[in-house]
Every structure is written in structure tokens, then in C-alpha cells.
């Protein structure tokens, strides 16, 4: 906005507002023998407690170690196997093997096994599997056609050449 417009808006068009004078604060009567209460002082938040945070991290590290010991007991067994090359490490191997067997018996190793299984499936998936997934799941006839295409070599583990054609064939 130009200076002229700005000046006009500020000084010539807006009516002046008359402000009423601020009312005088009433004087409070003096009380004998009593002092005024101290003003409330706002205290800044205390600095973070390093000791408490250290304890938190230590607790977290120990809990993480416990989780790994329970759900990845096989890993412990492998590390103990390396230690067992020395005489002093052999009792550790015996304990870790017993622990691994115990975790296996309660099913604690199932979590890692299922994650590994999912990753293996993803690794071994072919483009035909991706096409089927993208199509919302293949019907039984489509699966047979795709299997036949795979057997003939028309669909390989790499880019599909006839996957689209296979899906279009109906039962």
C-alpha cells in the first residue's frame, strides 16, 4: 500500500477513540501486626536428572538383553559356542544349550522363526506372485495356469513375460 493510502487510513478515516481514564486503585486499609504475604515466585523447571536418566537407560538395556535372551536364545548358543573353544567357556555352552532347549519348549523361538519365515517368503517371491497379489488373489484356475506357465518357462523369477496373459485366462 502506498504511503498516501497508509497515512489516510491511519489518520483521516478511522475515528479517534476516546479512552476513559483508568480507575484509580482503591487503597487497601492497613492491617496492624500483619505483614503482606510474599509474592509468588515462578521457579524454572529443574534441570534433567542425569542420574535418573542413567538408571532408565540401564534398566532399558537390561530389559532389552532379557528380551533377546528369551526370544533369541539360539543366538546366545552360537556366541557360547565360540567361547567354548577355550576350556573356561565350556560351562557357558552347557548352560546356553539348556537355556535354548528350554526356550524352544515354551515356544519363545516361534516369534523369530515366524519373522524369518515371512522374510524368506518375500525373498523367494517371484513377479508372478506379485501379479497375483496385486490382482487380489488368484482363483484356482488361474493358479494352475500360472503354474503351467512357470513350468514352460514363460514366467521366470525375473520380469514376467506372460503373467498378465495368464491372469486373463478364465476357468
Amino acid at each position, binding site marked *: 500500500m502506498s504511503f498516501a493510502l497508509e497515512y489516510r487510513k491511519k489518520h483521516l478515516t478511522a475515528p479517534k477513540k476516546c479512552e476513559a481514564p483508568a480507575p484509580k486503585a482503591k487503597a487497601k486499609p492497613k492491617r496492624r501486626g500483619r505483614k503482606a504475604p510474599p509474592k509468588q515466585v515462578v521457579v524454572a523447571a529443574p534441570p534433567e536428572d*542425569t542420574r535418573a536418566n542413567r538408571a532408565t*537407560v540401564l534398566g532399558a538395556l537390561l530389559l532389552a*538383553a532379557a528380551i*533377546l535372551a528369551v526370544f533369541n536364545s539360539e543366538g546366545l548358543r552360537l*556366541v557360547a559356542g565360540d567361547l567354548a573353544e577355550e576350556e573356561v567357556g565350556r560351562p557357558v555352552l552347557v548352560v546356553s544349550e539348556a537355556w535354548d532347549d528350554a526356550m524352544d519348549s515354551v515356544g519363545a523361538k516361534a516369534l523369530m522363526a515366524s519373522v524369518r519365515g515371512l*522374510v524368506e517368503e518375500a525373498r523367494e*517371491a517371484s513377479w508372478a506372485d506379485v501379479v497375483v497379489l496385486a490382482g487380489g488373489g488368484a482363483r484356482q484356475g488361474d493358479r494352475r495356469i500360472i503354474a503351467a506357465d512357470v513350468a514352460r518357462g514363460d514366467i521366470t523369477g525375473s520380469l514376467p513375460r506372460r503373467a498378465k496373459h495368464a491372469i486373463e485366462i478364465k476357468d
Partner: protein
Amino acid sequence: MLFPPLSFGIFFLGVFAAAWELRQWPEARKAFLVGVSYIFYACWDWRFTVLLAASSLINYTAGRLLAVTESDRGRRQLVAIAIALNLGILAFFKYFGFFMESLSDLLTQVGLQRDLPFLEILLPIGISFFTFHGISYVVDVYRGKIPAEESPLDVLLYISFFPQLVAGPIIRASDFLPQLKTEPKLDRAMVANGIVLILLGLFKKMVIANYLANELVDGVFFDPSAFSGPDLLLALYGYAVQIYCDFSGYSDIAIGVAGLLGYHFKPNFMQPYRAASLREFWQRWHISLSSWLRDYLYKPLGGSHHGTAQTHRNLLITMLLGGLWHGAAFTFIVWGAIHGTALVIERMILAFKPAPVQIVQLAGYGPVGRVLAFGAMGGQAFGKALSVFVTFNIVCLAWIFFRSESISYALVYLRGLTDWSGPVERATPFLVALIFVSLAAHFVSEGLVERISAKLHDAGALTLGAVLGFGILFIWAMAPGGVAPFIYFQF
């Protein structure tokens, strides 16, 4: 000792507990951290701890002598001697064999074959990194950025601190030494950030980098003549992702571990593959090295203050030596030369580039102006996308030489990229998705990691322990078997 395995976890648990217990006794804490850092280094080869100590003491002594020397000439001579000693150690261990082999080849070619002295020299791990730390300390003292340390303990800790000892980041003396003067603190942000970075680093290295190396890159680069163009291109992009995840993963773990011990390290990578120019790429890739080369090599050579020709010369020298720093081979020199040449050409193009269209001004010219502004926005966006694509492919071209065993292998690879007639064997959905998602992650918000770690600021030990424990568990479950060494350990 490597970061991922269980042994490091046990090691760090003990170090963390003891280091914070010693917080009230700063000298004892520093001595303890120096001790464990030397134990960490000794796990590779205990003999090189002597070299590490010698390098640290040379730099400490140089600093003390600079503090008591007043004449400019004397101080310059001291700096020169210290730098020469540092580089001499590096040159002997890293480049002696390369030099003798190259000299022998040259003499054979000109008919002057000789039996040159043969020395089998082991490369001390991390020598390139701790040499640069030492030079950084001496030069910063000379420039007055930091005072010379009176206690050798501080210099020993700065150079040998285990999170960054073997593969960086290259921490500046002026950034780290002042932190040793104050009482270390551990706040919630450092805790949360440390845990998130450690998990992120482990995922990048153990899952992404290891799968790409095992299932794609190593096989294709071993014999590029056996693969078709599409496989070579996929492996090249795969290597770009692998080396990023491998190196930035290590940096993330190092920064996270240092943070949990109360020390702040600057970021070393900032989504480098979203760079729209080579210059921007080097502001995002291995930031600690590129800034070190800028401050201790490029600027002392004259930088960009003495005309165009000298600027270009300085850029080329800096990038050539940066390439040589990575390894004693002509492939690394070619890698540096490609980056140097590309940077020079980029500067030349930018010197003639017209000023970008001011979209806001265009929009002020009514409907026609708004249409033009919209078109200009689209054009700029397309131009930016094209710049990012071109920059990424120039970087990948250089990676061919970085990864190849020799120049001839690299040339075979380049020739193979033009042949698309063969079958495609390696492009499985898993690998393509891994590469695509990893590259796409470069374009997410830059503050995403901080926002994720902010959600853990108020978490207690139970939540943090569950996140860390199950995080590591899932990473181990997803990762391929074995522990591949970090790529930058060889530097």
C-alpha cells in the same frame, strides 16, 4: 569387535554403567573411556594400539610446542612437521605397497625392470580416520580455535574414542574437546535419539546393506561380463543403496552410542541422494569428510578466492586427494577425478545459468500471469526432478570405479550397461522393492527421525527396553546370516 554382534552389546552395557558411575570424577572417567577404547581397538590387532598411542602423543606434543612457541615462522614449521609425521604414518601403512607396485609396473613398461623391496604391510584399521583427527587437532590449535591441551588424556580420548575410532564420523577437535571440559549430562532427548539412531543404523546395515551385498552386488561386480545391462544397472543402484546404508548405518550407531555416553556428534549424512547438484551431494554425503577437506585442504589451497581457474584447480586437487584417501588404488583416484570434474563442470554451467523465474511476481499479473506462474512452478519442479536424477546417476557412474577391483573391471561394467539383449536374472521383487523403498526414503521429511525419537522422550525404562529389545530382535530375524564387515573399515 563390530557394532552389531552380541559381544558389543555386552561391552557397551559395562562401559555405559561404569562411565556414568565415574561422572563425578572427570579425569577417572576420561581415563576409563581411553582404556576401553584401546581394548575395543585391540580386538582387531593389539599391535596397532602402539601406533594409535604414538599418533596421539605426536599430536599432543605438537600442540604443547605450539602453545609455547611465539614466532609465526616457528609455529608454521611445527604444524608442517606434525602434518608431515601424520601423513607419513598414513602413507607408509596405506600407500607404500601401492606405490611400490605402481613403480614396478612403470619400470617394467619402460624396460627397466627391477626387484624392488617387498614389504607385506598390514593396514591398521581406522588409520585414515585417526590421522585426520590428529591433523584437525594440530591445525585447530595453530589457528587458535582451541587452546593446546595440557592433559594428554584429553587428546588420547579425542583420537581414540571408540564410537568414531574405526570408521568415523571425523569429529573436529574444536567440537569434541570443549565437551570434555564440562560435566557430561544425559537428558531424555539424548536417550531417545540414541536408541532410535542405534536401531536405525542396525536396520540399515544388517538388513538393507547385507541383503543387497549378498544377493545382488557382490555377485554382479565379481564378474560383470556374465550379466546383462538391466542386471548391471540394478546392481549399480543396489550398490549406491548398499554403501549409503552401510556407511550411514555405522555413523548412526556411532552417533547414538556417543550420545548415550553424553557426547554430541554432528550428523554425517543427510539424505544425500535427494541432492539436485554435486555440490549439494557433498553437503549431504559423508559431511564430516567433505567439511574436513574443505577446511583443511581446499581453503588453504586458496578456495574460491583467486579466480575461476584456481578455484577449479583447487576443486580437482581436493577431490583427487579425497579419492586417494579412500584407498590405495587407481580406481579411487578415478572416482575422485569424476567428482572433481563434475563439480568443475557444474560451476561452469551455473555461471551461465539465467536467474530463476520469480513465480510470485508472475502471479501478480492477473489470470495470464497465474497461468504462467503455474507453468513455471511445474517447469521448476520438473527441472529439480531432472537435476536429482542426473546427479544420482553421475554419482552412480563414479560408484562403478569405487566398487570395481580395477579400472579394466570398471570399463567392462560400463560396456555391459549398454547391452540390454541378455536375460534379466537378478531383478527379483524383493531386491527391486528394497532398492526402491530405500531410495524413496531419501525424500521423506528431514526431521522424521527427530519426530520419532520425540515420542520416546517421556518413555520409561520398560517402554525403552521393549522398543530396543524387540527392535534388535526383529532386525536380527530379518537380517541374512553372518556379520559382513562395514565397507569403510577398509579405509
